[in-house]
């Protein structure tokens, strides 16, 4: 079993890992913001609904959520037909990460001092202008550290997809155990995660540095 062959198979799995990662981010980042606004909104029902959503999602394992999204609909409607495996994984991930992101957004938005809003108000700015021109960048600066933490966690959480047999990186590596009695490809798979997370760390570090010019 050549190193090159193992690498090429692992890269295949890594591609799927990256796909789950990217699609989850693209949808969960804006969805999380929406949930955050709902949980801070005026309407009591909406506020409670979004808080309940966050509570349910954060208090159950992501692995279980993946299983429920995959098997649940087929069982409930008794059709026996399931979502495509990859779709189920991505849907579960988007829902799960939106809940976590919403709490990070909420914390960031609520940490901005009331004085910033009031200063904008007495200068005749509209709510919209205050959000986009004054608070947004301050919120971004404050949420970069928790966000980078959460996003780096997402990289490794993608390995939970194997619970419904989606052939991401870990599953690819594991197959060498059963098929070829080889354990080292599994160890080797760790390098892929490390390189990916290393890149993300550098990326977020660069953003933090870029926002270093002011203190909020």
């Amino acid at each position, binding site marked *: 079993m050549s190193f090159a062959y193992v690498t090429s198979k692992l890269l295949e799995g890594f591609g799927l890992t990256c796909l789950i990662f990217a699609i989850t981010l693209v949808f969960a980042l804006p969805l999380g913001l929406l949930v955050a606004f709902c949980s801070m909104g005026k309407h009591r029902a909406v506020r409670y609904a979004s808080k309940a959503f966050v509570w349910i999602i954060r208090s159950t394992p992501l692995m279980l959520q993946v299983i429920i999204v995959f098997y649940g609909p087929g069982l409930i409607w008794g059709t026996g037909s399931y979502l495509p495996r990859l779709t189920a994984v991505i849907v579960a991930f988007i829902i799960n990460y939106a809940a976590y992101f919403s709490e990070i957004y909420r914390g960031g938005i609520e940490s901005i*001092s009331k*004085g*910033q809003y*009031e*200063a*904008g*108000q*007495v*200068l*005749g*700015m*509209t*709510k919209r*202008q205050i959000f986009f*021109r*004054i608070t947004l*960048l*301050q919120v971004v*600066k404050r949420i970069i550290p928790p966000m980078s933490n959460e996003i780096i966690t997402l990289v490794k959480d993608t390995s939970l997809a194997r619970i419904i047999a989606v052939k991401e990186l870990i599953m690819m590596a594991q197959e060498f155990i059963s098929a070829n009695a080889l354990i080292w490809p599994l160890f080797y798979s760790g390098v892929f995660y490390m390189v990916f997370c290393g890149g993300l760390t550098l990326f977020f570090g660069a953003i933090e540095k870029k926002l270093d*010019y*002011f*203190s*909020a």
Partner: protein
Amino acid sequence: MAILRVENIRKCFGKIEVLRGIGFSLGRGEVLSIIGSSGSGKTTLLRCLNFLETPDAGRILVNDRLLFDAAGLVEERDADVHRKRLHFGLVFQNFNLFPQYTALRNVTLAKELLAHGQADFRKDKTRILREIREEAVSLLDQVGLSDKADAYPHQLSGGQQQRVAIARALALHPDILCFDEPTSALDPEISGEVLLVIKGLASRHFTMVIVTHEMGFAREVSDRVLFLDDGLIAEEGGAEEIFGDPKSERLRSFLHSVIT
């Protein structure tokens, strides 16, 4: 002619009545200081003038135009409230500069945003923005910070930040400029530079309402003084009357406690 008339302002927070019927008027170019112990309602009154709090009762008129009437309170369009706010400027105790913008941009931002809404903005964009900028530069010069235009708030001392905040408030040409304890967050030795700027404005006959604990300053700069006690005006008069010849026992004991 009175530039500002405030009539019977009342404000409750829950069950606590913070303002229990405040009325006064202010002439153009006059400086009014509001003094009183903490909890007497000074800051709340100032916040009512700036529409940061909505009074439960009373009226506010500027230049004989009704700006606020609790009795006829209707859902106003957002834009109207923003227009009305512009009659007043407010300098906060904690400056509240925008941290991500330079001193100069702090001064120009609000005015630029207002200019965006004007009909001729597209046509004359460069000229309008240049004028706003030039005025901001001159305002920073007036508060003694022409060399700090490109500094960010965290690079400035408290006194410098407060002076930027004053320039920022002046940029919108408010009819009445309000100060909420402008030196309370500053070291005593730094307070002086801010007070000097405010005195300069007084000598140029800006109309100002100043909530302050600096009695010497209030005596020097004010045309008139209101002494608030428990949500009511307990005594009012010229600066020399209030500080030199206080009538009520309450004011005498207040002055005694803050001055010694």
